[in-house]
């Protein structure tokens, strides 16, 4: 794998050989091992190192960018030549911003030796364990187990230089037998904190709670969203969480900064110092990352902004680098007693915008749906399609479970939401 010294040498070469007024060099490397399995057997097995070297140069405000996957001098010379020629032929960018100067960067801990040392034999043994569990239930198991070591390096003509090394291990598996199908997935930065046996038990628990689903009517129904569903939803909320597009009138967040736009129980932050979660030392272009409160008790505090837009509007250039949603202390059993009836959803699927301006999204349930009534689970039910204005749904949060780690970058709670808008039922 390429080392940080190799990357610094490349930056030195670029500094000496680029004649442009400005440049930004970005190098991203990874060492990857991915083992994919389906129907109780391994179907795909990949190993290798990847590298992306991107050079952006500017003459006055004219930009050009070239990238490759090699750090040899010949390759770097090619990038300089290509990016420079593009910049010279280009038109001036009225939104040009000079590259970032040197910054003091926050300390983050994204690397775990435990993860870096996982071997292919261990991964295959774990998959074998999971498959044997599925076979004991006369079920079929499909999923992926993967380990990555990532290197991120950024250097600019204005003096910024930053490097970070991170690790990630993730395991995901879907168990299926006839009409019963459910999934668990988790990723961590430190494999030492990963409990495969616990994950198998969680899969078994979800699987055993399901049986062949029956259809119930669509409509406005209270829903308990388990953490995987909540995180899936948040990914899409964040997708539109941009200050400029809000200010330009394209999203529901127009003129909402500082206002109670979400439910009063909804708080979403990014934090550098959570010991379980990966964080970023620096954001795009070399802006130092910092702790950010995005939504506090339903009040919209901050939104993502590019370096250009932040400068124009006297804002900070920000983006969510990890996701922490504050939780509560209500157990799922308690939630079921708080409403007459409802459904428990393990995950969402295929979320897409239906109306960008109002913030309405559509999606489906996936990985098992349970119907409860009188405080108890009654039966498995078929999947639903929903069309919901997601920020409005946070105003209907009735209770929250504790915030739990779902992925290496996210902690979210289970949510009980009233009157979720289910507009269709599926055939399975």
């Amino acid at each position, binding site marked *: 794998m390429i080392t940080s010294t190799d990357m610094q040498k490349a930056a030195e070469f670029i500094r000496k050989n680029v004649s442009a007024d400005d440049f930004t060099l970005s190098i991203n490397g990874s060492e990857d091992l991915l083992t994919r399995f389906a129907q109780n057997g391994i179907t795909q097995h990949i190993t*290798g190192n990847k590298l992306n070297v991107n050079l952006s140069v500017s003459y006055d405000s004219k930009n*050009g960018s070239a990238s490759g996957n090699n750090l040899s001098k010949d390759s770097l010379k090619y990038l300089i030549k290509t990016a420079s020629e593009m910049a010279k032929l280009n038109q001036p960018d009225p939104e040009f911003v000079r590259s970032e100067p040197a910054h003091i960067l926050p300390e983050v801990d994204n690397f775990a030796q435990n993860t870096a040392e996982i071997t292919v034999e261990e991964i295959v043994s774990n998959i074998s364990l999971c498959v044997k569990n599925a076979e004991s239930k006369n079920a079929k198991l499909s999923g992926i187990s993967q380990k990555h070591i990532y290197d991120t390096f950024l250097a600019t003509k204005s003096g910024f230089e930053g490097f970070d090394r991170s690790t990630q291990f993730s395991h995901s598996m879907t168990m299926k037998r006839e009409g019963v199908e459910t999934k668990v997935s988790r990723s961590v930065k430190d494999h030492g904190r990963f409990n495969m046996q616990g994950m198998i038990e969680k899969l078994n628990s979800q699987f055993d709670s399901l049986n062949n689903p029956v259809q119930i009517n669509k409509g406005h129904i209270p829903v308990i969203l388990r953490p995987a569903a909540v995180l899936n939803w948040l990914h899409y909320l964040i997708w539109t969480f941009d200050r400029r597009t809000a200010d330009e009138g394209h999203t529901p967040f127009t003129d909402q900064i500082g206002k109670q736009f979400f439910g009063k129980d909804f708080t979403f932050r990014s934090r550098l110092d959570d010991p379980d979660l990966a964080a970023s030392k620096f954001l795009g272009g070399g802006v130092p990352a910092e702790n950010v409160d995005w939504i506090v008790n339903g009040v919209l505090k901050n939104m993502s902004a590019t370096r250009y837009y932040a400068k124009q509007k006297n804002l900070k250039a920000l983006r969510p680098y990890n996701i922490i949603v504050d939780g509560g202390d209500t157990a799922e059993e308690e939630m079921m007693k708080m409403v007459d009836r409802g459904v428990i959803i393990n995950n969402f699927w295929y979320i897409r915008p239906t109306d960008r301006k109002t913030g*309405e999204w559509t999606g489906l349930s996936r990985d098992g749906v349970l119907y409860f009534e009188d405080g108890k689970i009654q039966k498995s039910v078929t999947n639903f399609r929903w069309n919901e204005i997601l920020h409005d749904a946070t105003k209907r949060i009735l209770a929250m479970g504790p915030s739990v780690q779902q992925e290496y970058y996210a902690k979210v709670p289970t949510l009980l939401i009233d009157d979720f808008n289910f507009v269709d039922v599926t055939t399975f």
Partner: protein
Amino acid sequence: MDFLSLAMDTAKSLGADYADIRIQKSYTEMIYLRNLSLKNTSLNEIYGYGIRVFKDGAWGFAHNNVFTTDEVNKTVKKAFAIAKESGRVKYDNGLVLAHERGYIDSYKTPYCVDPFGVPLSEKVELMMEVNKTMLNYAEIKLAVFMLECRKDEKLFASTLGSRLDIQTVYIEPTITATAVAEGDSQSRTYSHGGQAKGWEWIQGLNLTERAVQVAEEAILKVRADSLGAEERKTLLLDPNHMALTMHESVGHPTELDRVLGWEADFAGISFATPEKLGNYQYGSKIVNFVADNTLEGGIATAGYDDDGVPNQKWYIIKDGILNEYGNTRATAPLIGNKMSRGCNRATNYFDFPINRIPNLYLEPGKEKLSPAELIADTEDGVYIEGRGSFSIDQHRENFQFGGDMFWEIKNGKKVRPLKKILYKSNNPEFWNSVDAICDERFFQTFGVTNCGKGQPGQRGRMTHGGTLARFRDIRVGGSQ
């Protein structure tokens, strides 16, 4: 150094049952213009090789970008070692590859003007003109032009003796205008997706004229009404819109790897299971879906797939009946097929080839019928152009689609624009509701260059096509 031969000789000496190497150099030029500001002007080059080794019914794949004898040999050994590890948890009693032979051949996308030979200044000048045209309208607050050009140069060799030299090219221009008025924001897009053509295609598109239409329709749309509550209606779907519906509701469910459950943990499975082959009424009798990886201008057309199987043409749905899948050498034998249809494709050198949708189109109607005649023959319905919101379940059965532009049809005429229209349907209801398809004079193709599938995710590409078609009795309404 002949790295192709070296890799294959090393794989054979290790005892591989089958192996192949794909040396691939991919160039992507991206230009992204937003309100006259160039947000991205970049040329990306990715060069390396991927080696697949098949041993005792299991795969191993390793990739590298260092071209030395030592590194090529190491990469083969890594692929071989993890193939052996894969064999510890075999799929059934081990995979079997469909019969194939070796080929020595070459393929090149036919074009006149290499898009990578056109100066950046010429491209940017055109894009600026289009952007300015759209921004001339006061209501247009956002004008975007994205241009992507991609070229792939592949050398493929296999232990079957194949030696293939393949060069493919596509171009994809997309222009979007967004109007803001009356508290709403609505967009309109012009795009044919990616097309395997040279720059001469762009020169013939008259994009500045199209920009006028796009901007004016965005303004019409932002001021348009929506429909009320959902009700059953007739839909007229243009081929650009249908490119997306057929991709999601016919293309993906007939990928054999999904049918077999290989995507169960991620992209999902398929309702179109093998016992339905030859008897399942997928569509009405006039519905014929053709898979054609020999299609001129098609972006899955490459001479051969990444199994080294020649491109082919076949029916996925014939006279409305599910006829056959798209498959690969590893998936075809699992349902008793002796040969592969050649749908195994990887995006970059470091990607493992996966079962992909072929170029797939709805065959034009056999009776003479023009779009104007079809509209005139429709009393009450909604005409949908272009692609919008789309969402489909993981079995590819139940779905909801929007669109890019909507028109109300009354008494055989387009009477007013609409916005925020969604329709819900499922398989087999949707394709069985087709009662009219315009004829081949109006056939158009649309490329999809962003088909996300696989783990790690790959961006696949294929072309879809068709003519204006009519669907009866579909649930249509405003959003919510």
